[in-house]
């Protein structure tokens, strides 16, 4: 797996560093204006090289070479998820630190990080769709997954509102309440595990 990860890193190192630098002012901006979303933006920036990576591999035909290497196809799929997770984790740590300092509250930073984790984990649905439908349909896949993620978030948001209504300032309650972000992160992570299983199944016997 290390070889695959190295190839992803070398292929995307420029955009990783650019997005990492960009994520800092973006996170600062959101930390002041909307702390609850402060993690999501840096994380989505940082994971974009991982999703672009699949498209690159189709273009470079590396995807059609991996079956000739002494690793299983599962390892290849796992490496994509590992790269995606590592980048998401980097974004989360950056935003967690910035948000916690700006908001002066570790709870606010953690809550934002949990929400960001939920979003990014849900976005991992891009992988099974891409392995099944092909990287050439990446734009359609991104739109489909974005719609699914937004719908899931709004359903969750309104359920949260219904539960927290009458407890005072809603945004303030959400920011203080770790359960709100925690449950969303958990839902996202469950979807990510299902994405991982579906991706392995989609690629295991795919004819290349």
């Amino acid at each position, binding site marked *: 797996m*290390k*070889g*695959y990860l*190295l*190839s992803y890193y*070398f*292929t995307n190192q420029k955009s990783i560093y650019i997005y990492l630098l960009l994520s800092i002012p973006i996170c600062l901006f959101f930390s002041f204006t909307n702390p609850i979303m402060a993690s999501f933006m840096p994380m989505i920036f940082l994971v974009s090289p991982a999703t672009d990576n699949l498209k*690159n*591999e189709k*273009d*470079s*035909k*590396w995807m*059609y*070479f991996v*079956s*000739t*290497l*002494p*690793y*299983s196809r599962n390892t290849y799929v796992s490496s994509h998820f590992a790269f995606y997770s590592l980048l998401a984790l980097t974004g989360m740590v950056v935003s967690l630190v910035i948000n916690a300092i700006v908001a002066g509250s570790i709870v606010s930073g953690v809550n934002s990080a949990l929400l960001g984790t939920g979003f990014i984990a849900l976005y991992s649905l891009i992988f099974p769709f891409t392995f099944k439908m092909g990287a050439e349909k990446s734009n359609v896949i991104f739109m489909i997954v974005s719609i699914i993620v937004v719908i899931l978030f709004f359903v969750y948001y309104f359920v949260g509102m219904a539960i927290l209504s009458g407890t005072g300032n809603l945004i303030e309650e959400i920011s203080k309440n770790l359960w709100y972000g925690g449950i969303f992160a958990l839902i996202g992570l469950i979807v990510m595990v299902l994405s991982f299983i579906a991706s392995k199944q989609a690629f295991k*016997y795919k*004819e*290349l």
Partner: protein
Amino acid sequence: MEYLLNVQNLNKTYVDSDFNLNQINLTIEPNTVVGLIGKNGSGKSTLINTLVGNRFADAGDIRFFDTQISRDDYAYKEHLGVVFDDLRLPNKLNAKQISKVFSNIYRTWDEQHFFEMLENFELPKERQIKTFSRGMSMKISISIALSHDSKLLILDEATAGMDVSGREEVLEILEDFVDEGNGILISSHISEDIETLADKLVFMKNGRILLQEHKDTLLNDYGIVSFEEGEFDVNHSNVVAYRIHKGTGKALVNQNKDIELAQPLKNIDDATKILMRGELA
């Protein structure tokens, strides 16, 4: 080791196509080069893709290095080098980065040998490989295939796009590789390459093997009979294949010395033309 590759009764069909591989039987022994010959669409690439794991056979046995493999086996690929007719590498990397990647993929990766091959081929080490010409791309692919403990090389049109001196250089390296007890399965449109390298020839058409023969046997014992339509019995037991066009015909015959009219083959193209465009007897 008896066989580097032993394929028995391999079948492969497609849901959305009539094309299929039908009853493919093929063996490659150590110190042997097998040349796959056939027109576009004859099944050479499908066979190669099925052997290397990009596609899956419906039926049949595939044994690499005397061990039967299933679609979930992969450890044996440590000893398999594959070169396709196009660059299939992370193309934003340079050769130094490629070496780092492959040193973490192959347990037996030999970085020194890899860089020596690059120097021999005069390939740059710090230029993105996507900027390489087709010939350069093939050379780096061959360098990778030969920089780990490969015992069998599978080359799908790997010499295409190379200049004459580059091809000669590659063919010499491949000859040295075979002399070390290894084997090669090669498909190429350049019959000269196959004629130079191959010990055994496999002629394919429409997903089937028409003829398998040792190159020396083909060139020494087979012959061509030119005839006017109706003046030669194409059902003669020595006729392998024939083609009749505008009243004249040519037949590929075995045991040419038994047939008075037979002329010896000048090269494998003589046999290829009749096998690919004619009918089997």
